[in-house]
């Protein structure tokens, strides 16, 4: 058995083919739908009806579409945020923590910093606070990496727990709303602190932040010296030194920018949706962001598309759970299958399976690996 597998190897393609870059994800999604359909059928439902209901739920009505855009907002901002760091091969998996820090600092401004300010002053102040909070949470692992060589993957991951528990403590303790009958959460912000809605739906200004950020990042990556430096440093440390690029400073700036975008996502969630800081503010946006960034190939345009598709999957999943009485596990399972196939397909755009010649007689004595 080991010998049979041993004859096949993954070999890196010299350059990913352009056609494959389009066809492979499309085929992946199709295969995922087939595989998911099988399981839905096993659960006793008509797969086509379920998919139809998901599609209708997420995109087929004004409210469904609005809900999808509401979910797109944090996924887009955090996805762009971590993508900035990933471009430089800095593994910021602390999007979740940076999201919470942005939300916490923005909440502080709204409740205690400038509680009586009008909207024109308060909203920009909260935006700045969200950016700063996230940036700070990104700078800590950035500085540890730049000056001490600490592994940013571990530090960003651990800071997630610190930020989440900090938010937990605040909403259970010092910032708890005394009129909420023990329900954990801060008091409501003043109406001046609410992000304006786009059209009479729950969609809020945060979506515009996301789209703007994507456009700015596109220019940054494509058209600026700094974006170029990030690309070179991400690919080759030695080449960056050879070209005299300031590696440390760039690590700090990139981690700050990465965190700031995630912080902005947290700020726009508290200011745009609940107008309060509550427990479980994020169902893991900062982690899903990692998938958004990768499936979007770290390209701002790709990230916009993927954030939207993933949000639609989330909303559609909620819909069929409610309307078709499917087990609660079906929706996240479908999402999981789609991601699984997308990421698996990704491998095939960069590698190919190659069959090696039959092993020699020498290998017959033991397992060939």
């Amino acid at each position, binding site marked *: 058995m080991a010998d049979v597998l041993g004859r096949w190897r993954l070999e890196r393609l010299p350059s990913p083919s352009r056609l494959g870059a389009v066809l492979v994800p499309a085929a992946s999604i199709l295969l995922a739908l087939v595989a998911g359909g099988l399981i839905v059928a096993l659960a006793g439902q008509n797969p086509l009806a379920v998919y139809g209901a998901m599609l209708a739920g997420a995109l087929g009505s004004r409210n469904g579409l609005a809900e999808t855009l509401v979910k797109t907002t944090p996924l887009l901002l955090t996805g762009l945020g971590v993508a900035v760091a990933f471009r430089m091969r800095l593994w910021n998996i602390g999007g979740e923590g940076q999201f919470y820090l942005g939300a916490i600092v923005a909440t502080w401004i709204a409740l205690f910093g400038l509680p009586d300010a009008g909207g024109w002053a308060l909203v920009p102040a909260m935006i700045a606070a969200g950016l700063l909070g996230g940036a700070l949470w990104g700078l800590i692992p950035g500085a540890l990496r730049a000056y001490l060589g600490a592994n940013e993957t571990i530090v960003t991951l651990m800071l997630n727990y610190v930020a989440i528990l900090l938010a937990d403590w605040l909403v259970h303790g010092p910032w708890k709303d005394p009129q909420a009958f023990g329900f954990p959460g801060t008091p409501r912000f003043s109406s001046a602190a609410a992000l304006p809605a786009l059209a009479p739906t729950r969609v809020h200004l945060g979506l515009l932040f996301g789209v703007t950020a994507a456009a700015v990042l596109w220019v940054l990556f494509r058209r*600026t010296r700094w974006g*170029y430096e990030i690309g070179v440093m991400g*690919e*080759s440390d030695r*080449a960056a030194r050879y*070209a*005299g690029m300031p590696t440390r400073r760039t690590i700090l700036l990139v981690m700050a920018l990465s965190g700031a975008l995630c912080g902005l996502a947290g700020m726009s969630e508290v200011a745009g949706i609940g107008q309060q800081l509550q427990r479980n503010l994020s169902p893991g946006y900062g982690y899903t962001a990692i998938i958004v960034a990768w499936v979007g190939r770290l390209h701002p345009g790709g990230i916009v598309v993927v954030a939207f598709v993933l949000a639609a999957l989330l909303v559609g999943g909620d819909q069929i759970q409610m309307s078709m009485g499917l087990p609660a596990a079906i929706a996240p399972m479908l999402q999981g299958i789609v991601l699984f196939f997308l990421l698996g397909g990704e491998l095939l755009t960069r590698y190919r399976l190659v069959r090696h010649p039959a092993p020699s007689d*020498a290998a017959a004595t033991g397992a060939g690996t």
Partner: protein
Amino acid sequence: MRSVSKHFGPTVANDAVDFAASWGEVHALIGENGAGKSTLMSILAGLYRPDAGTLGVAGEPVRFRSPRDAIRHGVGMVYQHFMLVEPFTVAENVLLGARDRGVVLDTRSVEADLSRLGERYGLAVDPRAPVWHLGVGERQRVEVLRLLLLGARILVFDEPTAVLTPQEARSLIATLRALAAEGFCVVFISHKLDEVLAVADRITVMRRGRVAATTTPAETDRRALARMMVGRELAAFVEHPAEEPHETVPAGNVALRVRGLRARGDNGLEALAGVDLEVRAGETLGIAGVAGNGQRELAETIVGLRPTAGGSVHIGGRDLTDKGCSAVARTGVAHIPEDRLATGLVGSLDVSENAILRDYRRPPLARGPFLVGRAVAAFTDRLIHGHDVKTPSRWAKVRTLSGGNQQKLLLARELAGDPAVIVAVHPTRGVDIGATEAIHGSLRAQRCRGAATLLIGEDLDELLALCDRIAVLYEGRVVGELPARGADLERLGLLMAGIQEATASGATAADRPPVVLRG
């Protein structure tokens, strides 16, 4: 090993090589860089598969698919770069290779085995010490012990003493003799002629992918070995009268001056021990020497990639010691690094992104914080056409270009600003003949233009064809310098082997190392 051949692309590393070593002997394999020694031994150890030829161990034909396969047949190799997991202990590292020891990690029995073997062969090392605590010499012992424990009877060492202190080298040599005395077959690759003569029972000399000779220490001496390693038909030079560079350009002012330069290598040991050099405008100084004698460190220190540990670097009269890579580049220094795809180019980026690596900060490529797309494209096209770089487009990933075209692109970029000083390290390594000629042409044109070139090479023909003077680097020092025109090859060979003029004429017993350990 019978008529073993191995090609890497167009390069022939081994050409129908026959090689045999016997049980109970220490067999030295020597030759210049690129002579094919390491390739041959990597084939023996199962790392590479030969394109042609057969291998036999103990009279039995074998075909290795992997180093694991080779070990099963009793062949193990100690590489220059150790394959150890640093946080693991010695015993754990040994267990890593021993899959058939079962699922449960029985470190205690391994520890006992290690202590026993260590005592027997003079390879003492604490089995419970984590590897990162160990020095280079001890790590090497771990590698040897691992192979012994895995049942290797044929042990191959790739330049084992290159990384060791003299004391450690002496102890290793004693171990090699002890192993041979017990019937093991020991093969070691070396550049150090004295060491080879002191330790080996037989010596095989390789040159240009073939075996030049097999001899014994009794039948030969350093001089003869050096001649066999370097020696080549002088006719080869007469065939290229067009390559005669030693014409007319009057040497200008000193453009590069290096004084008492010291630096440490990546392993922390002193790699440059006080180098003095001067290169004038319009002059090419070649640096010859066996790899690992400080060439890389010399180039990196001059261009500001590696900190100095003493001495100074002046370029065009300005002190640029430790001023950093971009300051040096701004002064007009081109650098063609030895590992083009790791340092000079970024394989996963495209041609134009690589083309602007040096100049992306300056107009016309940059305007404020922005890059000017049109200027970048024009600049890239200029480099591509100026140096005949063959690429499908400006957007092709550099990794997909051939080695020759990568190097032409690198050269085009580095020479674009008409540099005053060029530091070129192995500029034609791994490059086909056409590209080699183009690169030589560019370097000659630069010399005529008045650039001062420091050319670090491993191919003596190349150095002789391109340089005005050749300095030989040995153990971090310049041990001799001679004009390239009419250079005495034998003297060059001896200098590269670290034998200076005073002793070159008569190799006496006195200048052999005091490590003649027999049996």
